[in-house]
């Protein structure tokens, strides 16, 4: 005689707790709650029973329930109270969720509460500085600028080093989206609930093929069954302003320099004006960000719908971004909760007005003694431009930066839709068996035009510009898996097996069509289309004994269309174990200790994303048609040519082996908690662009499996809750990560061979400042060792004869530091006093170096003038007194370690009403509060380590209003 019991487990905020354990005391009967916190336990003996609901981080609750035979007793809601600050809900892992206590890999979760506040346009900024070993560097201060995300350093040389990003189970295409700088801009940060970062192979290997650089799982907010309708309105208004400009000479200082040290012809070029060009191109910029969301359920259909609008001005004149987003999620449960359906649709529409960063460099360099307008010469729209002696436009000269911005319209529109529908079916006859089907689609439509009028000096020879592009992307996903989960006494195990198919098509019907302003065709439309496909088979098994010992083993067999037949598939296994020492008898009674778990993991992941370096068909012998402008004359005909392309028939998967050991700890009921991890990642068969032996291929550089690279490091995180009482609650989080990157092999080598040059700089053409060579970090600076005089001034052109050859030349370069920090630190605090709260987050990078390309090209007398025009210089010229350019001097490689306060937010809950479920909250946030650094340039945080034309990160003050009812 048995019956069933059902109900829902809620947290303090009346939100469902997924993954909570619900047991009938004294039996092995039990269940875990679903995503919405609901559960159903069957075959419960009739009569009075005690139901125990528990979840890590919460106080367990006991409740007496009377089971009636043949019936399902509905118990209603059970609310659990949080007992620690350690959020230990079910953690989203690849293909499903796991209880945190069972997790064997290195996984970090950041949820809404901990997100960076203020005006955040790009989702990844929400977790900047929050996770040990995850480095997020924005590309600059432009709205929607792209970010470089590195998890535990880069594992590849020329293949993609970006992590895989999975949004609600759909791995999204992170390749270039024309019309938007950052593909993640197309996701509204307000829709995001949690980020889960999978760092080591034991966690990532289930995504084998694309997991070498870590995986970031983004889960968006969803409605809950039975939930009352709630409306949230979020409004923010911000003002942004530059904090600093590039230091250059004032008009008077410049006049003085040219008059004392310049030539006569240079002095003749001086003007009478007094223009601070950088002041002319930057402005105070405003941003308005509005979001509305509805969450709740209609009958038994839980839903969430949201709309967002962001209007963001850049601090550089003419620069603007407008984004509209809409999202809808439906999560119905059918067939007695046996079939759960998860439908997500997200759409966004982004309009960009780009402003060329070249204007920033031009503004720094433009002669400050010239005026913005010429006065009488109207040829270039009235703007002052440099002329040749014969009064024609000097085409080599720096262009007037104000004209450069005002006379160029660079607009684009990008529309992206990401949708998926996921069916999760628990078999009626065998509830331990679950089938999951996920169908996803990610599409993008974008186009843009660049218009420059014929009178603009910037395109004067071409009679202006009227260029157009168009891009379509269609990416499909099908995932299917079966999972069997069973608990037998103290043994709990799951077995999962699945299949994944993903296909990417990128079509550019009008790939940068170029014309003059009047529409005269210069370069006809050229269609570009490419496709790649991934097919994978994967399996995972987990085993847990007595909640003490956990084991996870995964295997994934991945096929990529980018490799030749025979090499298409790669197998990526991993294994991870965890031992919860705290549960052992010798620690069980140590009450000060609330958690102690040891994790060990190892695994292999793969890399096949070489599209950026070699396209999608790098192994095929193929021919490319040349464009009309690159024809060759035979007789009186111009023949469009066919070029044979280089190819590599031996291409195969790059493999990264990761070893990770970690310790999760918690003290004082979790008020102090965190983790320590050490890891070693070795990448072999690097997909690197290297020179094939001359004459052997139809190119001089080809992507080849050559060499090895390793990253090793330590990570430490600490979450504390130092004060917690009725009035005050203070949380403080700290993380630190140390990473060492080293190239350990690049194939054959010779003493005379210095490595593969990378890192192009401005000044000279085709000059590189970095090198990849064995025994050094990737992209190490490769420079000459400056000799200084007794006053510490660099002596022009004098460098140490490093190789003792008797002369000093380019063979005397040495490898000196790199752009990647060795140590990254993050500190965030969140304190509340009654209705008031104050949060801040800070970051520091140590050991990162930057090549000051601004000084190297603008702090020499030679940079005053070339070809009949003057250019401003930086005050660094007074320090060096350089006549000529010294591009390769290590003098310009500066320590760019920094401490930055990203954000301070003050919040006040004006009013709460309706049983604490409704509230009005106002916030005041300041972003980019300060930077402490010894770096002498504009901003020390430059992802590739070459500082030039950098769009300054503004300081932003945001007033926010949050309304919930």
């Amino acid at each position, binding site marked *: 005689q048995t019956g069933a019991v059902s109900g829902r487990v809620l947290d303090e905020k009346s939100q469902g707790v997924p993954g909570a354990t619900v047991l009938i005391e004294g039996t092995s009967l039990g269940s875990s709650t679903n995503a919405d916190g609901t559960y159903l336990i069957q075959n419960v003996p009739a009569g009075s029973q005690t139901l125990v609901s528990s979840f890590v981080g919460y106080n367990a609750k006991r409740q007496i329930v009377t089971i009636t035979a043949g019936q399902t007793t509905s118990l209603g809601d059970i609310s659990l109270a949080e007992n620690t600050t350690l959020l230990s809900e079910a953690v989203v892992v690849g293909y499903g969720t796991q209880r945190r206590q069972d997790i064997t890999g290195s996984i970090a979760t950041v949820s809404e509460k901990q997100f960076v506040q203020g005006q955040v346009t790009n989702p990844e900024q929400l977790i900047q500085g929050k996770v040990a070993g995850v480095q997020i560097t924005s590309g600059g201060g432009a709205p929607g600028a792209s970010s470089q995300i590195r998890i535990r350093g880069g594992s590849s040389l020329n293949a993609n080093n970006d992590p895989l990003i999975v949004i609600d189970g759909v791995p999204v295409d992170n390749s270039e989206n024309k019309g938007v700088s950052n593909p993640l801009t197309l996701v509204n940060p307000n829709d995001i609930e949690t980020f889960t970062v999978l760092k080591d192979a034991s966690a990532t290997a289930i995504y084998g093929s694309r997991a070498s650089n870590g995986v970031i799982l983004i889960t968006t907010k969803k409605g809950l069954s039975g939930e009352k309708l709630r409306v949230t309105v979020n409004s923010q208004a911000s003002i942004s302003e530059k904090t600093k400009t590039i230091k250059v000479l004032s008009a008077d200082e410049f006049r003085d320099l040219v008059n004392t040290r310049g030539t006569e012809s240079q002095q003749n070029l001086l003007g009478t004006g007094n223009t601070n060009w950088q002041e002319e191109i930057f402005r105070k910029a405003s941003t308005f960000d509005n979001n509305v969301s509805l969450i709740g359920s209609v009958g038994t259909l839980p839903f969430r719908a949201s709309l967002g609008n962001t209007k963001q001005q850049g601090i550089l004149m003419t620069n603007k971004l407008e984004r509209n987003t809409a999202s809808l999620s439906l999560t119905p449960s059918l067939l007695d909760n046996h079939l759960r359906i998860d439908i997500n649709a997200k759409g966004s529409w982004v309009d960009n007005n780009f402003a060329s960063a070249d204007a920033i460099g031009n503004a720094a360099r433009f002669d400050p003694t010239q005026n913005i307008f010429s006065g009488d010469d109207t040829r270039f729209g009235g703007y002052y431009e440099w002329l040749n002696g014969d009064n024609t436009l000097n*085409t080599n000269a720096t262009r007037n930066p104000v004209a450069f911005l005002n006379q160029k319209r660079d607009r684009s529109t990008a529309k992206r839709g990401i949708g998926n529908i996921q069916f999760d079916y628990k078999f009626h006859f065998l509830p331990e068996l679950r089938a999951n089907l996920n169908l996803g689609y990610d599409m993008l439509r974008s186009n843009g035009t660049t218009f420059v009028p014929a009178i603009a000096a910037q395109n004067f020879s071409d009679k202006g510009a009227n260029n157009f592009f168009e891009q379509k992307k269609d990416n499909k996903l099908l995932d299917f898996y079966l999972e069997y989960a069973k608990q037998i006494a103290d043994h709990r195990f799951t077995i999962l097996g699945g299949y994944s198919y993903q296909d990417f098509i990128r079509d550019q019907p009008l790939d940068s069509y170029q014309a003059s302003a009047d529409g005269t065709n210069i370069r006809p439309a050229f269609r570009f289309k490419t496709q790649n496909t991934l097919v994978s088979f994967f399996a995972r098994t987990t085993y847990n004994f007595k909640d003490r010992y956990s084991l996870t083993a995964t295997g994934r067999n991945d096929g990529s269309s980018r490799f030749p037949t025979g090499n298409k598939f790669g197998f990526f296994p991993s294994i991870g174990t965890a031992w919860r020492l705290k549960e052992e008898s010798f620690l069980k009674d140590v009450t000060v200790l609330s958690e102690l778990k040891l994790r060990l993991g190892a695994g292999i992941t793969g890399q096949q994303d070489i599209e950026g370096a070699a396209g999608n068909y790098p192994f095929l012998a193929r021919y490319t048609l040349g464009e009309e402008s690159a024809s060759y004359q035979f007789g009186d005909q111009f023949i469009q040519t066919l070029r044979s392309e280089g190819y590599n028939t031996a291409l195969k998967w790059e493999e990264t082996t990761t070893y990770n050991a970690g310790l999760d700890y918690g003290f004082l009921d979790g008020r102090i908690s965190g983790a320590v991890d050490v890891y070693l990642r070795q990448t072999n068969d690097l997909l690197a662009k290297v020179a094939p032996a001359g004459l*052997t291929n139809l190119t001089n550089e080809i992507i080849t499996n050559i060499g090895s690279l390793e990253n090793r490091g330590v990570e430490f995180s600490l979450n504390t809750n130092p004060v917690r009482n009725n009035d005050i609650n203070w949380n403080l989080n700290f993380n630190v990560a140390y990473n060492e990157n080293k190239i350990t092999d690049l194939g054959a080598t010779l003493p005379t061979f210095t490595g593969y040059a990378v890192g192009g700089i401005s000044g000279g053409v085709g000059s590189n400042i970095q090198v990849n060579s064995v025994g050094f970090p990737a992209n190490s600076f490769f420079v000459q060792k400056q000799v200084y005089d007794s006053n510490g001034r660099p002596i022009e052109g004098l460098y140490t004869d490093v190789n003792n050859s008797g002369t000093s030349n380019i063979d005397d370069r040495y490898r000196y530091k790199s752009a990647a920090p060795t140590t990254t630190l993050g500190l965030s605090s969140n304190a509340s006093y009654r209705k008031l709260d104050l949060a801040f987050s800070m970051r520091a990078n140590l050991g990162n170096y930057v090549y000051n390309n601004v000084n190297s090209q603008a702090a020499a007398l030679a940079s005053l003038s070339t070809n009949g025009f003057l250019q401003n210089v930086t005050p660094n010229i007074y320090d060096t007194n350089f006549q000529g350019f010294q591009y390769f001097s290590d003098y310009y490689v500066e320590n760019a370690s920094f401490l930055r306060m990203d954000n301070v937010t003050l919040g006040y809950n004006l009013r709460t009403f309706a049983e604490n479920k409704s509230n009005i909250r106002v916030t005041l946030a300041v972003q980019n509060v300060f930077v402490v650094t010894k770096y002498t340039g504009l901003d020390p945080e430059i992802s590739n380590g070459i500082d030039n034309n950098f769009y300054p990160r503004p300081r932003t003050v945001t007033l926010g209003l949050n309304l919930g009812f």
Partner: protein
Amino acid sequence: CVGDLDREPFNEVTSEVVYSDPANYKPILAKLYAGLALSGQTGPSGKPDLSGVDEGFSNYVRQYWSIQELPTDEAVIAWGDDGLQDYHRMNWTSNNPFIRAMYNRISYQIAACNEYIRETKDDKLSGRNITGTNLENIKKYRAEARFLRALSYFHSLDLFGNPPFADENDQVGSFQPRQISRAELFSYVESELKAIETELVGAKQNEYARVDQAAAWTLLAKLYLNAEVYTGTARNTEAITYCKKVIGAGYSLQNTPTAKFSAYGRNFLADNHTSPEVIFPVTFDGNFTKGYGGTTFIIHASVGDSISAAAYGIDGGWGGTRTTKALFNLFPDTAADRRGRFQTKGQKLEIDNLTEYKYGYAVFKFRNIGSDGKVGKNITFPDTDFPMFRLADVYLMYAEAVLRGGTGGDLGQALTYVNQLRTRAFSGTNAGNITASQLNLNFILDERARELHWEGHRRMDLIRFKKFTTAAYLWPWKGGLKEGRSVSDNLNLFPIPSTDLVANPNLKQNPGY
């Protein structure tokens, strides 16, 4: 769905498909020619042939011009690009990016020719059922591809001496080519040129810019004239034989001046494709053959701030190349000798500083203006073709080979040819003519500079006359000193770039590097 992993490209065509259609053979041949003129598949830049180098720098003619001119008395350059000053200062090493760019361009060109020659073998063509006129045409194309390969191997032989070697029998892929000795490569180029002599279209019978028998003869003459440098054995008699073949083929000097331009000067203008003395040009066009190499580079780089760009038919100069007083002083009277055209206004004859444009006179030779004074189609990208081989060079080679003791020619004829050039130079008068007693080897070297300066011959000439490295002839900044100094003889050959030494363990570096 595992079958979906066999994706085929949309834009590009696979090799198999390309060669199945006879119409595609000409566009592929055109690419082999374009390998000399262009840097990639988009003009002026984009989709480059070579990577790891600025695309404009990677152009064949630009690199060839730079490597043959910049280390000599004829040219200096102002720019501070990594390694560029090493040319004139003669302190290059195996890591020099410009030497590597030249080497890579030559290797690329040879590899592309090998691929074409491999795919046009008789058995492959018959396997694809190509017959009749198509077959006849393709065989001619194949002979032209062999010429282009021989030309690049000749450049390799001249510059690098003992380069790696591969031909159509080596498949594309990861093998390591053997190193060939300079003498052996000499024989290979010789045998290739002789083998295609009859397969090529007759002299002056081909479409403009395509190679004919006269181009092969000119290259053979050059090969033989320099044979002593390459093999230790002089072959001046053969040089005379092939010069005579070219001279007998019906080319004539451009002897007609226009209202605006001298007869000599017309060979370097936007309409120089009409010149009757050009044997083998590399073509450029303002609309259809655009790039930052070739004559775009030669013209723009030579124009600086004190000079009117309009006089060159361009929109602005790059302020780079000038010459030394050594070349200027070869013209005792630049007004009488119309070949000596220099921009002196705002410029200084003495070079105090290599990297400042104002030091050194600018050469006023190549222009983007037609004989009628009209500017070319595009003021950024000239229409001016680069004369790789022209008759005047063959006349001077003939005279030199005779003076060097080759048989089959005579001094009287040599004097006639030299005086034809001088008569043209001196505006159709005999004011500059020389006598038989004045005709000697030193005169020939100087006359070559006067007639052929900035056409990419100088380094080869100086080496042949043993004046490139030795103290016998010094010019400003030779060896890195303002007054000039002799340098080590090993600099007569360039080093094999360290990148290829690493990639190919079969290679041994040239001595002294």
